[in-house]
């Protein structure tokens, strides 16, 4: 007898619907799983065998073949257990399913209980995309699965209950949709009010967050680069619902989600250590897992001591900085992970940290200082929008600098709101030569931009990026057009300064 059930497999952070075909035939008794099944899938044989027996069913002493289709897609993980078990029951006539189009996504324990799996949000979403109306998941995955809208999620505790549901005896009641939580006021975050001085750094951080422009701070140790950038989470507006679901899917796939509260409103803030490998930073490895770049999706990727990161890791960031996603090439084909983050970078100007600062002079050999600065490779520097050279404040003159995070966060949110009302994306993600930007540019602004491009020998890419930053500065000022002053301020933060 032949049967077919539905499950899903994780590919990066996306799910793929998988048909589980089970054939029970005469022959030497045994259970074979084909369809590029990885080792965790192969072990499903033992889990299914025990779970069936301990749930009061039996594994027929026949030759059983399980095919996971599409068969050319490598499959990993334990999400197929339930679908295989139910498939075996159907194929051996122990169950006549009322509705074979329910997706079954759960791992089995030996006693027949359903266990939660990683990536439930992505898998359930894949089922929904494929037109599946019902999905059964382990109770532990219920909140994650129900965060996906447009599909009935039926949490179940045991294999026995799933069989009763499928047989039309006792319906598993659907879970209510997981609500989007209210934004929680963040506490024990550093506040801008605690940062001494650094008006330029504050201003640049505000612009960076208000338009999602990549920012780098350069300065000697102890001037507050790290503290300033750590204030970013307290300034970032909460995630919108669609964003929260996108982020939730990534964290679900990475196994980093709080299973009871899969949706969060706080924007991600990822601060990997500088020893991080390329794979851990952008994703990859034998089983593709999202890297820090994807975990920072819709949030902030903070690279403290940026120039100490491995060169190949920094290089790998170029693609997500350009396209908002990471493409990982595999023998079986390329796979794409979302990675639309705001890069906040902080580094010292030279190995000892004191190059070009007032007072205490640098003790590095000029050649080694140069090599160090060259690590901010041209291609990476080109993709930065804002660069600020910081120096220790002289004296304790705070001025208007002690502005608390609350006030700045208000301006950031207002500027982002202006962008949402005007256009489809934030300023930093406007396409090159976007008509919105061109329309907003005043005649004086256009002349200024052309003159500065010649004077500072700006690349066409820099001109476009400057225009986007200037748009954000105009948004912060509540101005409807981009004028010369906005452009001049934007150019003050041009990353080409880092080369001098």
């Amino acid at each position, binding site marked *: 007898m032949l049967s077919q059930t539905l499950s899903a497999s994780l590919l990066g952070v996306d799910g793929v619907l998988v048909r589980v075909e089970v054939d029970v035939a005469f022959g030497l008794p045994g259970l074979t799983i084909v369809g590029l099944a990885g080792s965790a899938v192969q072990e499903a044989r033992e889990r299914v065998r025990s779970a069936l027996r301990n749930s009061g069913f039996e594994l027929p002493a026949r030759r059983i073949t399980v095919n996971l289709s599409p068969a050319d897609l490598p499959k990993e993980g334990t999400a197929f257990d339930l679908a295989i078990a139910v498939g075996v029951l159907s194929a051996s006539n122990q169950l006549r399913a009322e509705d074979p189009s329910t997706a079954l996504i759960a791992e089995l324990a030996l006693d027949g209980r359903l266990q939660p799996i990683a990536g439930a949000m992505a898998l359930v979403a894949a089922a929904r995309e494929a037109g599946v109306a019902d999905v059964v998941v382990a109770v532990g995955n219920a909140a994650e699965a129900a965060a996906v809208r447009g599909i009935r999620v039926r949490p179940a505790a045991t294999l026995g209950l799933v069989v009763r549901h499928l047989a039309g005896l006792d319906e598993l009641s659907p879970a209510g949709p997981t609500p989007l939580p209210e934004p929680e006021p963040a506490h024990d975050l550093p506040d801008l009010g605690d940062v001494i*001085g*650094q*008006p*330029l750094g*504050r*201003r640049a951080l505000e612009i960076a967050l208000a338009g999602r422009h990549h920012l780098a701070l350069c*300065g000697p140790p102890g001037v507050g680069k790290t503290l300033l950038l750590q204030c970013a989470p307290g300034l970032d507006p909460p995630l919108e619902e669609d964003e929260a679901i996108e982020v939730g899917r990534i964290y679900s796939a990475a196994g980093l989600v709080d299973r009871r509260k899969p949706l969060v409103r706080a924007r991600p803030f990822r601060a990997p250590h500088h020893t991080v490998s390329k794979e851990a930073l952008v994703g990859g490895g034998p089983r593709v897992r999202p890297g820090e770049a994807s975990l920072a999706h819709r949030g902030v990727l903070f690279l403290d001591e940026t120039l100490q990161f491995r060169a190949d890791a920094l290089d790998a960031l170029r693609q997500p900085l350009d396209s908002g996603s990471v493409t990982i090439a595999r023998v079986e084909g390329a796979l794409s992970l979302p990675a639309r983050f705001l890069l906040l970078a902080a580094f010292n100007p030279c190995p000892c940290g004191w*190059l*070009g*600062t*007032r*007072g*205490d*002079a*640098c003790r*590095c050999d*000029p050649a080694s*200082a140069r090599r160090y600065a060259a690590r901010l490779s041209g291609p990476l520097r080109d993709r930065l929008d804002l660069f600020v*050279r*910081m*120096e220790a*404040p*002289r004296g304790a*003159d705070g*001025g*208007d*600098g002690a502005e608390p995070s609350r006030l700045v966060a208000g301006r950031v949110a207002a500027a982002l709101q202006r962008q949402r009302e005007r256009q489809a994306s934030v300023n930093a993600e406007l396409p090159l030569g976007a008509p919105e930007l061109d329309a907003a540019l005043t005649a004086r602004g256009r002349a200024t931009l052309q*003159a*500065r491009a010649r*004077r*500072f020998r700006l690349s066409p890419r820099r001109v476009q990026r400057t225009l986007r930053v200037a748009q954000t*500065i105009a948004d912060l*000022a509540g101005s409807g057009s981009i004028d010369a*002053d*906005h452009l*001049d*301020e934007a*150019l*003050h*933060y041009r990353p080409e*300064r*880092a*080369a*001098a």
Partner: protein
Amino acid sequence: MIGVGPHGPVGNADPVEAPATVAAGSAGRRPAPVMRLSSASGWNGFELDGLDVERERPFWLTLGLVPGVGPVGFGRLLARFGSAEAAWKAGEEALAVLPRSVPEAAVVLRRLRGTGPEAVARQMSRAAAQVGARAITALDPDYPPPLARLDPRPPVLYVAGEAATLAGFGVAVVGTRRPSGYGRSCAIEIADELGRAGVVVISGLALGIDGEAHRAAVAAGGRSVAVLPAPIDRIYPPRHRSLARRLVAGGGALVTELAPGQPVGRPDFARRNRIIAGLAAATVVVEAPDRSGALLTASAAVDQGRDLYAVPGPIDAAASRGCNRLIADQLATLVTSVPALLQQLGAARGVQRPTIKVLSETEGIVLYALLRRSGSIEELMSRTRLPTGALASALTLLESRGLATSYGGATFHPTLAARRLGPHA
């Protein structure tokens, strides 16, 4: 005891009074002189006039290749044997009079004797000519007069470019390889003014202050001389190769004591610095931390009785500690301003105020604040009471008009053009 102070060919215009001698207490903290004056060096009172230039020339070029034969050793050879030719003929016996015995000297001498001095000299001249240079001995009429006053003087110089520039009135502008924005700004302003005034700017082509000084002098249409710590066919540092070319193209010159193709060893900074100080009527140390090579040039200038000036820096700046100490020890005259320095050097010239497009009120305020004192955005904010954004924007405009620069640091400085506008632009 070494007499210092603004005497000599320059410094005639209202010099700052410096004591004629240095107190014993402060002399102990002074950097050690590069090379001690010694009446036994053989050059003092030795008459070169009696020697036949053409006949001697090959022997001068060849003897200079023997390890251990530096300016001092060469002088001793002349004093002992009467001519380079006679010293050459004496063979290995001549090595005994050298100030220090180098084991390889005998081997090298034997090899050179095998080739013959004429062939060696031809080789040297050809190698020099390949990079547009030639050899000038102390016997040649175009040997730079300032160096002829040195004792001991370098017997052979290799010069690329205009040798006559070496005879001109020159001022050395030297300093650290790791300057601050302030140091760069001062070096540029001083070298620019000297270049405009027709004074030859002499330096060592090193990274940092030296490079800025050469660049600014050439940019101002002036002439500049670079004294190299390496052979003429090996421009050191390599990153300044194009600067060296521009220098020569602008009527300047490259000079070195080291013969072409000499073994590539450590660049000889001490000998280089002695020539820098020797070529210059006065030396200006722009920015130098403790133990800077520029301090060697300074002490060579003092030893040679040339005028020494130092640009003061903040007392908390390690980069200026050497300069400040030169001033404190009364070895150098304090530079109060660039116009005053030019006056003291006797190179002052009429001030021309360039015209500039009108600045807005905000930009005028920022420029005025910058001209009073360089500063970071934060300092300028507290002085101008302008908001961050407006200040950042105004600075970009000033930068684009060439009136302000940050040299890649956090501190903004007014440029030369801005200073010439005067404080009431």
